[in-house]
């Protein structure tokens, strides 16, 4: 039982703006004219398409399979035709396009035949449970999108101490988890029990911020139905970022996750509320992850939560919520503290899209970043930092690109929560500096690795060239030596009269034959006197002609002529 909670350092009290969207009833988003499903909706490797253009798919059918261990498959959110597989704009801070599968819905919304698993999850082996979760494409729905089945591995111990269910939802504006807890507390509690079984967790804590009393009561009631003492719901103080994994673990258990380590290393696992509901749907109904609750809020006429199929364009959600109040300055994906801005609305909702926040040109709700004043070293950022870092030092080092020093000040422990940004009186975009520094360090690290490989390859190239040269020289030398030896042997053979080599013997025999032929009598022997006279006459005649010609062109035809005649 949780007796007392712990207070993590720093944190900020931000205006909530959650009232905007929480009071409206959650409704399903209208079926859009087309669904655009990015292949990369999670942390890890992008999924690989396993359908072809023009293929008919049913709701829940797998359209892209996981590619490797850290990856997740993607399923068709509704029935329809595969219209295209190609690059489309996605919700990514770069504003670039990425490979997507486009489905044109046929409107029937016909499910594929689902493989319903035993309603009694406890009879299913934990590793089989993990496989079902993996095949259902479930990833963490809190924002990071880490494949859930990997988290559900309790490790070598075979059990974990504490499973924390994160229902704190600390970012302003966002209410999708709050709505889910109010709407489907039973599903969530079932999901929690399944995850507890998969992890063999000794203790489960559902942590809900105290600004969500209805959700807390709903979960408490659902828990009471099961009468499981090892699962308890606790209210934690509302302070941003209480929902960040490391801060939540500290709040609930008082334990800190060590640097470069994971919660599982201290026998703790954190799961988001949305993920638990998805796990329930996958185990009890066999449904893959194809939709989620999304908060559509900000400067729009009817902010509310919608149950959205993945791939639905955001502009259609905004239209369903009454449209924008004025004209759009930017669209923020995620909350105002950690989200990123996009400048077009025709972007698909993906597994990690928890909130769509519209910032209109006419509104003054958001602090704008048009200018920043110099840092005055007031230290407010250090007081606000929930990770216990010194943001201003990180800022100086990131700005001057002294990345070694930034790392000495534990740059990689920064969770990019934005508390320092929020409190900065000079409005310096601090987190942006840290993101830049982190990316730059990674880039340099990669370049260093690449240049090391190139060096090794070049050294090997040089070694290879040298080796080949040496080999060639050696071959040449051997050949020459062999030739020399042969010649020597030849000479010896002739001297000794030995005929060791059959080839040589053949040559010698041929030479003998030629000699013998030469010795044979010729047709010029044994001639009569008349013939001799004729020959002499002809020779004399030829000599005359030759003399005339030989002045200009001396030849050696004499011998030939004499032979032929």
């Amino acid at each position, binding site marked *: 039982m949780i007796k007392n909670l712990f207070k993590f350092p720093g944190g900020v009290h931000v205006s909530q703006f959650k009232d905007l969207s929480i009071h409206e009833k959650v409704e399903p988003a209208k079926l859009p004219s087309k669904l655009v499903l990015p292949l990369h909706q999670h942390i890890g490797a992008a999924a690989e398409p396993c359908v072809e253009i023009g293929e008919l798919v049913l709701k829940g059918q797998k359209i892209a399979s996981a590619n490797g261990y850290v990856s997740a498959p993607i399923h068709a959110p509704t029935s329809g035709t595969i219209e295209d597989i190609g690059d489309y704009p996605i919700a990514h*801070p770069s504003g670039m396009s990425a490979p997507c599968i486009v489905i044109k819905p046929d409107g029937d919304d016909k499910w594929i035949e689902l493989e319903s698993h035993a309603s009694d999850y406890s009879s299913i082996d934990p590793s089989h449970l993990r496989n079902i979760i993996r095949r259902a494409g479930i990833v963490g729905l809190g924002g990071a999108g880490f494949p859930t089945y990997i988290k559900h591995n309790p490790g070598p111990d075979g059990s974990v101490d504490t499973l924390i269910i994160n229902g704190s939802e600390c970012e302003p504006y966002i209410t999708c988890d709050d709505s889910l807890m109010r709407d489907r507390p039973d599903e969530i509690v079932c999901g929690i029990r399944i995850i507890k079984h998969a992890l063999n967790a000794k203790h489960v804590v559902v942590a809900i911020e105290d600004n969500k009393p209805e959700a807390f009561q709903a979960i408490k009631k659902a828990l009471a139905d099961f009468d499981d003492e090892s699962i308890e719901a606790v209210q934690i103080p509302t302070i941003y970022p209480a929902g960040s994994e490391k801060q939540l673990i500290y709040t609930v258990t008082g334990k800190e996750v060590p640097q470069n380590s994971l919660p599982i290393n201290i026998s703790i696992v954190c799961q988001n509320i949305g993920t638990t509901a998805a796990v329930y749907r996958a185990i009890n109904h066999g449904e893959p992850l194809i939709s989620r609750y999304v908060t559509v809020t900000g400067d729009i006429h009817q902010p509310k939560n919608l149950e959205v199929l993945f791939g639905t364009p955001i502009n259609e959600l905004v239209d369903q919520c009454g449209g924008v109040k004025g004209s759009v300055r930017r669209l923020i994906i995620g909350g105002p503290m950690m989200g990123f801005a996009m400048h077009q609305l025709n972007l698909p909702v993906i597994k990690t899209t928890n909130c769509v926040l519209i910032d209109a040109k006419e509104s003054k709700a958001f602090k704008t970043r048009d200018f920043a004043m110099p840092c005055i070293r007031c230290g407010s950022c250090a007081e606000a930092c929930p990770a216990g870092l010194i943001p201003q030092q990180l800022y100086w080092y990131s700005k001057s690109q002294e990345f070694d020093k930034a790392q000495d000040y534990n740059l990689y422990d920064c969770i990019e929560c934005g508390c320092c940004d929020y409190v900065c009186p000079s409005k310096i975009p601090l987190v942006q500096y840290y993101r830049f520094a982190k990316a730059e360090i990674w880039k340099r690290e990669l370049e260093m690795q690449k240049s090391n490989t190139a060096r090794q390859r070049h050294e090997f190239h040089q070694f290879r060239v040298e080796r080949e040269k040496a080999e060639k020289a050696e071959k040449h030398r051997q050949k020459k030596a062999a030739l020399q030896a042969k010649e020597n042997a030849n000479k010896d053979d002739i001297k000794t009269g030995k005929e060791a080599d059959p080839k040589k013997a053949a040559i010698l025999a041929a030479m003998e034959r030629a000699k013998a032929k030469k010795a044979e009598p010729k047709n010029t022997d044994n001639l009569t006197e008349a013939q001799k006279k004729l020959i002499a006459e002809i020779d004399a005649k030829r000599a005359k002609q030759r003399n005339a010609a030989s002045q200009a062109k001396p030849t050696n035809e004499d011998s030939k002529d004499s032979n032929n005649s």
Partner: protein
Amino acid sequence: MFSAIIVLGLLALTFGLLLGFIAIKFKVEGDPLVEKIDAVLPQTQCGQCGYPGCKPYAQAIANETADINQCPPGGETTIIALADLLDREPKPLNPENGEESGKTVVYIDEQTCIGCTLCIQACPIDAIAGAAKQMHTVIESECTGCNLCIPPCPVDCIIIKPVNETIDSWQWDKPNAIAEAKS
């Protein structure tokens, strides 16, 4: 007085032997400075510096026969790193050696390639696969963009391709300092 000479002489002998032994036992192979300089260079082995590779250039810098601003692929980053390492003033890239340009790789048009193997022999890091009268292909992930394979090609089938930023290689920009100063 003799005793002092003997004691000092013995001491000198002991330390001499000790130092001599250490000099042999812990001998540093090669020139550590050259290694350090070589580690900073981008290892494209392109020869634009006027030396037949990064290591010879590193050697030349260490011997102070070459300046630190002769490496176009490394550009400003490398010059600053070298200046830091050697405690010298950074200076702009020598235009005689070339200009700093974006990262590129080469690509062989396989329709045109006649399989002459000349590019394979030219590649300093063995990043081209192929054999005589067989089609050649650049191993793109290993290519450093040195372009040394281009001049020997008799049919001009090697094309320079810029390395485009993808969604995976994309990174956050440094916040705009001008916007910050404008106050």
